Structure formats: C-alpha cells, structure tokens
C-alpha cells in the first residue's frame, strides 16, 4: 500500500461562522484500514470538521479528496454515496419506525409508484445486521430497543454503502464495556476491509487501544498528528489543552464521618431489588455497573422520581419517605442528573436563574425575588467552582459542557445538601474539564459532604471513589473499598461473574 494513498483527505480547510473562525487551515487525512483518532477539547472545532467531512457544512476554503479524487459535498447523502459516513453521537433514529427503515432512511428501495420494496429492504437490512452480529431483526421497532442496540442500528447505517471512510463521533458514550467490545470488533472488521476510520472520543484509554494515529485540534487550528505507538496520554493532553494535567489525587482516606444516608432493602419494580447501602459524610461512594443495571434508577428513586415497592430510607438517623423531588430537596438530597441538557438545565434561562432555581421560593424579599440575594449566590458558586461565563445574564445554553455541568453542581451545592448524588458527572465533557470536576467532587467530600457518584467509566469511578458498589441487573453484587478494587474484579462484579 502506498503511504500517500488516503481514504479521505482534507487540505487547508477554513470554515468561518460570522463571529467565529471555527476551522482555520486544517489539514487531515485517514488512510484505508487505519483508525485515526481526532482529539480536542469541546469547542476546538472537532464537530465542525466532522460536519465538513460528512457534507453537512461546506467549507469556505480548502479541498476534500475521497480516495484522492477531489469532491465537493453538498449534503450528507451525497457524502454517503461517495463513501463517507458519519455515525452520530446523539442518536438520530426515528423511534416509531422499523430497524430496517432506519438503516435505509432516505434511500428506501423503491418499486413502482413510489412504493417501498419491503422484501429487498428487509433482506438487505438483515444482511447488515448479521454482519454486526445483532440479535434483533430488521422489522423490530426502534423504540423497543435498548440504547446500545440503537447505537448498533446507527452503525448499521454506515454499512449500507461501500464505505471508504467512517467517522465515529463519541460512539461509546452510552455503551457498556461489553457493548464496547462488540463495537471495537466492528471497527476492526471495517479496518480489515480497508475502510478508513475517523474516531472521535474523549476517552484516552480507548484511543490508545484502537487508534493508529492521533490528530489534535485546538481553537480551530491543527496542532499535529502523532503515531499512537510513539506517544502517551501526557503528550496528547498537552497538545490538546496546552498544559499538562494533574490527574493524581490525594491519598484515599477511609472516611470516619457519621453515616448520613442509609438505605435498606430498597426495591422498585423490576428496576432494582433489595438494595442496601450507606454513605458517610466526607466520602465519595461510587456506583458502577452496566447501563440499565439499576444505578440511575436508585438515584431517581431516592430523589422521589420513582415509586418504591419496598424498603427503608434513613437520613441522619431518621426514617423518611420521599414522595416527590420537591420533598427530596426539602430533606436535603440533591441529584445532578445523568442528562444535563434534558434534566439538569433550562437552556433558555440565564446562568444565575438556573443556579437559584431550586431555592427560588426562599430567595425573596417580601413577595419578590431578591435580585441581590440571587447574584450573591451566583457569584459565590461561580468563584467556588471556577465557572467561566461572561456574566450571570449569559444563557446557560451558550456555555461549554463542562461549565454547564458546574452550574448544575453549583445549583445543588447552593442548597447545602446532606447528600449529593452525581449521575455521570463528566459525560460529554472534555478531558481538561473532566479532571477539574473530579477534583471538585473530591474536595466536596473533603468538605464533609456525603457524595454518591454514578458512572459508566471505569477510570472515573476508580479515581474518584472511596468505596465502590458494583451492580448487576438491579442487584448489588459486591462492595469494594478503594484498596480492594482492581479493574479485573470490578469488571467481574458488574458482569455477574463474581
């Protein structure tokens, strides 16, 4: 193979939005059969580049070559027909339609009179699903599938054409470790067929596992390409954020604080059963398990969002029954939910208004909201959490993911909760901010908060927790202290093997 032979190559790409130069003279290529990881903090221009590659944006300057043939891409469909396929991070499926229809969306096979050729559709879809080792049929309705399986449908879309290059945008964000393996198998399979893979992820360990080369973007500019075997996380991180990152954490102390929350024999439908645990002031308790293992459901139940079928919740020695989120808040519980944009924030409201939302009823002088009181709270937690925002009036939707997450955390800290539950603290957040949030969680525990962290990322749960509870299919399989836990026994525990 000729080293200059590329599956997809862009040269000198410039893309300007009126206020921002999103991409400035970026060149990038992927060879047939390689995995080329694309890295950069949020806002570095990754998604713009990706959209340029997939025909969703037209660059102001620069050229695109597919298999060294110059190409002008007007639409995603055109890109796809030429062999460049983007697999979206956020699922873009029509839930009410069948798997087969989703795979061939936009190009359903036709018979006469615009009728769909169902026979061909199902046969073709079946063939693709088999290639991906999927255990569901083409006629299944997408709404009946789990998130991971939906992701597979998304991937299946890429295989409807003779792809030359496939772009994966954070494909593992909502996958469990097992499902991740299936995905990596698929990627290897594609590699073997000579397809070039562009792989975008924040997860270093994945990148170092599967990629051949790593390219880094910062502030819309190209910062260089490294051969994966020749580099390490530090070097990549430095390129990305322009400094090195302190990911080490202080020694794990076994907390001796009082038990704040104690939960006994909690059950909720078939979501989880007989769950018992306790969390002390000054510690971080980690919940680890596959998606759907019941971790989030426990958090939601504690927060009054689910009806418990049995069990006892004891807070500071007093048994309580939580009937609504409102009630949970009054009791001193706080939940930073897993989906920031859907559950955590009102994107159309200002930073300040979001932060004071849970306590707005108390922030009053007379019947009116006290403007000064609100701003005082906002300033305090902005400084405490180093939230970067031009001012309190800024709409929260305009902040970066990391700063948004800090607003959500700040919103609950301002309530001075007894227990802070954080579900997926760093989902979709870039590496720099990730470490910051991890440190923040540690500091909160050090300040005496009882913190519960739920995560699907093993490095995260390992680095942040004092104790770890492993869950499998709605039950607690094992509880680890920081000293006991290893990657191996944790994986076993959440796979039902221990």
């Amino acid at each position, binding site marked *: 193979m000729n080293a200059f032979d590329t599956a997809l190559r862009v040269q000198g790409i410039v893309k300007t939005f009126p206020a921002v130069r999103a991409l400035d003279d970026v060149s990038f290529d992927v060879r047939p059969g390689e995995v080329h990881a694309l890295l950069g903090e949020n806002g570095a221009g990754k998604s713009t580049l990706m959209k340029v590659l997939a025909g*969703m944006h037209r660059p102001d300057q620069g050229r695109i070559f597919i298999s060294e043939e110059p190409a002008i891409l007007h*639409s*995603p*469909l*055109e890109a*796809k027909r030429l062999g460049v396929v*983007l697999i*979206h991070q956020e699922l*873009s*499926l*029509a*839930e*009410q*339609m069948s798997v087969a*229809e*989703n795979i061939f*969306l*936009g*190009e*359903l096979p*036709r018979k006469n*009179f*615009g*009728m*769909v050729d*169902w026979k061909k559709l199902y046969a073709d879809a079946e063939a693709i699903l088999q290639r991906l080792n999927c255990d569901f049929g083409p006629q299944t309705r997408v709404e009946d599938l789990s998130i991971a399986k939906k992701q597979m449908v998304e991937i299946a*879309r890429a295989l409807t054409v003779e792809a030359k290059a496939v772009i994966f945008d954070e494909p593992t964000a909502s996958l469990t470790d097992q499902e991740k393996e299936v995905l990596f198998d698929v990627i290897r399979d594609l590699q073997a067929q000579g397809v070039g893979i562009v792989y975008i992820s924040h997860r270093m360990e994945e990148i170092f596992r599967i990629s051949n080369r790593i390219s880094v973007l910062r502030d819309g500019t190209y910062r260089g390409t490294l051969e994966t075997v020749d580099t390490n996380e530090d070097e990549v991180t430095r390129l990305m954020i322009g400094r090195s990152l302190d990911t080490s954490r202080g020694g794990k102390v076994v907390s001796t604080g009082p038990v704040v929350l104690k939960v006994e024999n909690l059950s*909720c*439908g*078939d*979501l989880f059963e007989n769950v018992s645990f306790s969390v002390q002031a000054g510690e971080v308790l980690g919940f680890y398990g596959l998606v759907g293992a019941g971790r989030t459901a426990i958090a*939601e139940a504690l927060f*009054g*969002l*689910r*009806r418990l079928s049995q069990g006892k919740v004891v807070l500071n020695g007093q048994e309580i029954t939580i009937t*609504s989120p409102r009630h949970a808040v009054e009791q001193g519980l706080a939940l930073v939910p897993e989906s920031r944009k859907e559950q955590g924030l009102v994107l159309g409201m200002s930073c300040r208004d979001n932060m004071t939302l849970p306590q707005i009823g108390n922030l009053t002088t007379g019947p009116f909201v006290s403007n000064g009181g609100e701003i005082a709270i906002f300033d305090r937690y902005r400084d405490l959490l180093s939230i970067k925002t031009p001012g309190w009036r800024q709409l929260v939707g305009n902040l970066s993911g990391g700063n948004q997450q800090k607003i959500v955390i700040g919103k609950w800290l301002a309530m001075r909760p007894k227990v802070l539950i954080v579900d997926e603290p760093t989902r979709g957040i870039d590496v720099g901010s990730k470490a910051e949030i991890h440190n923040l969680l540690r500091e909160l525990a050090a300040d005496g908060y009882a913190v519960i962290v739920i995560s699907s990322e093993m490095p995260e749960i390992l680095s942040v927790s004092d104790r770890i509870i492993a869950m499998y299919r709605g039950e607690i399989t094992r509880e680890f202290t920081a000293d006991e836990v290893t990657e191996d026994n944790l994986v076993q525990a959440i796979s039902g093997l221990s």
Partner: protein
Amino acid sequence: MSIMNKSSAARLWRQVVRHPIWFFVLVIFIFFSLATDHFFAFHNFQNILVQTSTIGLIALGMTLVMINGNIDLSVGATLALAASLAVDIQGWPVFESWGDWAMLPAVIAALASGIMLGALNGIIVWKTGVNAFIVTLGAMLGVRGLVFIYTQEQSFYAMNFAYSDFGSSAVGPLPTLAVIFLVFTVITHFLLARTVHGRNTYAVGGNRDAAVNAGIRVGPHMVVNFMIVGFFAALAGVTLSTQMGASTPNLGRDYELWTITAVVLGGTKLTGGAGNIIGTLGGVLAIGILRNGMNLMQVPAFYVLVILGTILIAVLFLDKQVNRKEDGELRV
C-alpha cells in the same frame, strides 16, 4: 385458503387492538343500537358515512401533516374557498355551453385552490421556520378573508341540479360521497404505510435531524404534505357543496378543531412521528356516530356540547392510561 383468511383476520384483530379508539367506536355503536330504534339501520349507516366524509377527508390529510409534526388550522377556510369556487365557477357564462361539463373546470379550480393554499402554508413553514400552528392560524383568518372578498359575503347556488344530484347519488348500495371517502381512505393508508413518501413522513416527524442527515429533503417533503391536506380540504369542500348544491362563506367554521380532535382521538401524536390512517378513521367515525346517535336520541343541543367535550377529554385520559408503560416511567 381458509388459513389465509384466518391469518388476515388475526392481523385485522391486531390492528384493532393497536387502536383503542375502535373499542370506543364499538361501545358507542352497541350503545346507540340498543338505545334508539333508528340507529341500527343500513340507511342510517349510509348517512353516518356521508356525514363523516367531510371531516373524514380532511382528517386523512391532517394525519399526514400531524405525523410530520405540523398542524393545519386553515382547513376550514380552505374548504369554504373551494366550495365557493366550485359552485360559482360552474355558473360562469363562459361555461354556459358546456352543460354538465361546466362542473369539471369548477371542481378542478376548487381542488387547485386547495393545493395552492397548502403549498403556500408549506412553503412559509419551510422557508421561515415559523411554527406551523402559527402559520396556519394566520392562514385560517386570512383565507377566510379571501373567501369573503371573493364571495362578497354571498352564498352561491348551483343552478344545475346535476351537481347536487351527484352529492346524493349512490354507487350500488353506497352513497357516492361515502365511496369517495372510503377510496381515499384506502389510498391514503397505502400512501402512508407502503410508499417511500409515507415512510419518510414518519421519519421527518419522528426525528427531523435524522431525516435531514439521511438526505430527505425535509422542506419540500413537508410542502407536499401541506398540499395533500389542502387538496383534501378542497375535496371536502367540493363534496360538501354537492350535498348542498350551494356554498356559503361561513362554511367549515370550527372544522379544523373537530378534524384535529378526530385525528388525535385516532392516536396520532401532536408531537409527530406516530399515528396512522386506521386510527384516524376510528376517530372520525367516533365523532360521527356520537353526533348521529345523539341526534336520533334527541339529546338537546346544549347537552350535546357538554357530552362531546367531556367524551373528548375522557378518551384522551383513557388513552393515556392504556398506553402508559407499567414501570420505567419517571414521576415527572
């Protein structure tokens, strides 16, 4: 052969189960059959079909638009405009020598007006990105204004009785208007369930971004559906005017509300992405049977309003209870 029948019967049953509104139709059907003498009669069923055909035709198009995640509030006014055109144009002196054929250009003009208004709504929704509810709310007022300007507040009368004879004619045992309605119901069902355009309708309503990324031209697609609902509103205007042999500028007021009601009763989601013609047919029949049955039972008009309103809310409530997933639902 019998096996075939069995499986198709089973399929039919599955369809019925998937559309709770049909249970409701069944219940009120039995109720009125027992409660009033005149309900259970073939001739009455013919009446119900003709009476529901107006709302029914519009509802067919509305289903497409609503699955798309849009809505069309201007259908009542469009219906009035089409009816006025159909009745007025056939009386134009130009067509005097055409005899019964004068109806042809009139009907074509009427249908074309509906399609064009639909296209206008669609293009505005597409190009401006303004919510379809707002666009068509404006059109609902504006098109009604056009009707009044065109008619100068007058009713039109079809001098040729052949026009209204068509409205009361029959094909075999079924009234022609009912046949038109049923034929279009079948066609629209196939359009939605079997054709590429129909499937794309779900895609656009279910996940617009996905549809865009998949290369479906969402804008023109929506315009086509607005044209379809415009066509059906105009067709309903024509069929309604054949029943009257006349048109009035006030025709079709509130029809948009009843049409939307029927479509929603039929299980189409206001948020788009879900719904189908079988459900819509059930929704239309439910309202038609209720009105007809209450007429026959002589329920006073004041109470009919209360009963219809209450039933609408009750059905919505029951539908929500039936379709609620057992667990897994957050209490938000």
